[in-house]
């Protein structure tokens, strides 16, 4: 119903190549999240899928049909924008109904679908209001409602939560997860936020500089990153990345150890370091160490007391270090 296939998509703006050959397959009903640093082309890829931007070359198939020349409204998609993009002069009801009206659906059906969507998102009390009379969270719900009434095969979200405050972000995130279960539609979602990516996704697509670095489930990306970039990008605090030579491992250009995969001791261990700074987060304690080979971040669970300048010994968990070659690809153990 809502599968998506992208074959060798390229997109250039003049001289600038923004997408450099993207291949991706999304199965029906999957929740796929695009992550990557700012400017890596996530929004551009989403706009190409939506048909708001023409690809320079390559093919897009939605539900098995090539849609390169299909206008956005006929692709069976709906899109939710970071800036909400509600029509300022229309009421909430008309904002949600406009797409159906344009498609020539009968008034009864529009009313019914709007009713269902507004009930799903608890927007019943606001149907007659203008967007200017709503809070940010309500506006974003209206934008999601506008997507739902179209009953699309494919939902596209471009950083839908980044303008919301932290509490509202969590709520709306849960709401989106619930909608995904309820509607069983395919969703593609762009975000900067790792927590959003890890919690919502069936599949994460990590992008960098217009290319896909790795595709996989959240745990695959966490446990077996294929490239240095993915290793550094997924996980917070960031993985410790140390030159192999400095650790006596000249076969690897870089060695990576996640902060949570290091144990510390006051008396003995593999590496000796002194404490630079300690962050107490309640559930976690983050320790920044200075060692012979550079800074090292350690994440301990629970509360721990350490003093600045205290000498500690750190030991990596066995089998939990990652080694990368000089092309930044993982060296299989």
């Amino acid at each position, binding site marked *: 119903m809502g599968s998506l296939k992208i074959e060798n998509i390229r997109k250039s703006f003049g001289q600038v190549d923004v997408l450099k050959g993207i291949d991706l397959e999304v199965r029906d009903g999957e929740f796929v999240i695009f992550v990557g640093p700012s400017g890596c082309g996530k929004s551009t890829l989403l706009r190409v899928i939506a048909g708001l931007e023409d690809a320079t070359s390559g093919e897009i198939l939605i539900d098995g049909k090539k849609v390169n020349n299909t206008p956005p409204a006929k692709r069976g*998609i709906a899109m939710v924008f970071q800036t909400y993009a509600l029509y300022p002069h229309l009421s909430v009801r008309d904002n949600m109904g406009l797409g159906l009206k344009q498609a020539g659906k009968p008034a009864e059906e529009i009313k019914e679908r709007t009713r269902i969507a507004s009930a799903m998102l608890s927007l019943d009390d606001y149907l007659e209001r203008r967007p200017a009379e709503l809070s940010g969270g309500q506006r974003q719900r209206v934008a999601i409602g506008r997507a739902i009434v179209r009953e699309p095969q494919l939902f596209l979200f471009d950083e839908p939560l980044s303008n919301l405050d932290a509490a509202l972000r969590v709520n709306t995130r849960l709401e989106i997860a619930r909608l995904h279960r309820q509607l069983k539609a395919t969703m593609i979602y762009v975000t900067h936020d790792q927590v959003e990516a890890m919690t919502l996704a069936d599949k994460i697509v990590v992008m960098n500089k217009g290319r896909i670095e790795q595709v996989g489930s959240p745990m695959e990306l966490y446990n077996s990153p294929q490239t240095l970039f993915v290793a550094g990008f997924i996980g917070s605090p960031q993985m410790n990345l140390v030159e192999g030579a400095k650790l006596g491992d000249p076969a690897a250009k870089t060695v990576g150890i996640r902060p949570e995969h290091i144990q510390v001791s006051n008396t003995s261990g593999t590496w000796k370091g002194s404490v630079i700074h300690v962050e107490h987060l309640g559930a976690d304690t983050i320790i920044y160490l200075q060692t012979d080979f550079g800074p090292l971040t350690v994440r301990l669970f629970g509360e721990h007391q350490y003093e600045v300048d205290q000498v500690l010994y750190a030991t990596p968990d066995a089998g939990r270090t990652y080694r990368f070659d000089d092309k930044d690809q993982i060296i299989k153990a």
Partner: protein
Amino acid sequence: MAKARTSPLRSGFVHVALIIYTLIALFPVFLIIINSFKDRASIFRNPLGLPNASSFSLVGYNSVLTQGDFTLYFQNSLIVTSVSIFFVLLFGAMAAFALSEYRFRGNSLMGLYLALGIMIPIRLGTVAILQGMVATGLVNTLTALILVYTAQGLPLAVFILTEFMRTVSDDLKNAGRIDGLTEYSIFFRLVLPLVKPAMATVAVFTMIPIWNDLWFPLILAPSDATKTVTLGSQVFIGQFVTNWNAVLAALTLAILPVLVLYFLFSRQLIRGITSGAVK
């Protein structure tokens, strides 16, 4: 907010300055209006005096309304001005939308070309325009004036509206595209309502030079049937004798429609001028 930062003293000074400026700007208008209600002798004897029982006279209005066909002149002016404004806004906004929304080869060159007219006065082309109008048989028609004024107003309109349209959110237009709006509906239903203040600004800046213009009516449409108010008033200004009563009365009447149009646009206009400064 700027309000919180200004002291009463400062805003007092600002207001005094603005009031003085307003008085200076309105004084000639005031003079025209009071003198239009006086008889000829009193205009010269006491130009600054208000009309009183002995000096009050409607002779100016009388001659305006009886000599020449001023109702027709008014009608001509109104038709020419409003139709020109309509076309300037319509074509200006459409060109601005294309320039701000679509990427195409030569986009910025085209924008520059369209804005060039701001710096080059259209009157330089008067001879060629007249020849063209003669060749197409448009001399002494209102169409001739409308065409010229539309051309005259477009550069500024395109320039101002392009800048404003760039500020309309891309996401909003894209949302419209996904909802199946055509490019025309996106333009008319989403973008135009959002740039209304800018349109009002353009309308006012376009309207005043057209309404006051003497040059093109005199050259392109001087016949009695196509005279505009400004041209019509000239009959009272003779080489040797000027009928001041009539001139002043005609000018007073000519101010009225401009005022009406201005009030129609003014609320939007103020928003248009300040919208850059105040978020």
